[in-house]
């Protein structure tokens, strides 16, 4: 089952990219996050971190970890049996997340997937 799920996942990614849907989703998410001020919050966090640690001592990795909360358990495309839909960033507004999830789900439903 896990193997199939993995192939299915890759297939989904390919379909997203090829149909251009991934790009649209990305743009939509980016726009919403800017509008709701999430991006500014994250930048403030980064700035505070850089101030604390010293401007020339920060790495991109550090900042990614600053922004990504500890509650996140999985990396981008990994197959886990985690059924909990955990929030991947603490301050992403629910409305934004809901909108994106809805859109992704409708895409998943509308596109026939050949795997399995």
């Amino acid at each position, binding site marked *: 089952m896990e193997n199939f799920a993995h192939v299915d996942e890759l297939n989904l990614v390919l379909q997203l990219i090829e149909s251009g849907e991934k790009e649209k989703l*990305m743009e939509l998410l980016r726009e919403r996050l800017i509008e709701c001020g999430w*991006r500014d919050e994250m930048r403030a966090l980064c700035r505070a971190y850089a101030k604390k640690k010293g401007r020339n001592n920060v790495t991109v990795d550090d*900042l990614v970890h600053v922004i990504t909360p500890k509650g996140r358990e999985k990396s981008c495309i990994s197959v886990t049996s985690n059924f909990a839909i955990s929030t991947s960033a603490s301050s992403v507004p629910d409305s934004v997340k809901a909108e994106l*999830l809805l859109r992704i789900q409708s895409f*998943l439903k509308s596109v026939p997937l050949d795997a399995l």
Partner: protein
Amino acid sequence: MSALNDGSSSPRSQVTIEQRASRCFDDLLESIIVDVASECHRIARLGLDLNLEVEEEELRLSAQARMADPSCSSESNSKNVVDIFGQTHPPIASETFNCMNCGRPVTAGRFAPHLEKCMGKGRKALTKITRSTTIARNRHARGSPVTVYAPYSTSTNSNIVPEGTPRTAREEFAEYTFEEP
């Protein structure tokens, strides 16, 4: 997995859709997080953010460094300016090399005036013109306030004006070409 339209699908595959949508969302979010992080990293490293405390501290440090430096600031000692590598340069360049036009050894500080004379005389085509340019220059010194681009305009002049025209006519032409923009 065939196309599913709505809740008529089995609960298991429904959960799978939500799960996959969530993973997909996480994926998108991670990309955006990396974008923001790398932008912040760039701003931090380049010092582009208006981080007042840090800037103030840097200003303070540089002011201290300047005070501690015995050779003073550039305003008071403009003749021997220290550059970023700690070297001082004399105000007049004294290195000697050979002019690439005439081959004579020349001091760097006198190179520009040397070139003025060197390139003006170095061409055969201009030896004929120099006489007319000096005459034209004298005329202009007496008359109009127009600046003299003598070698070049008169050389083109000599191409346009047909041979056999008296010298005065050529000089008239010289005057008119100066007035053209």
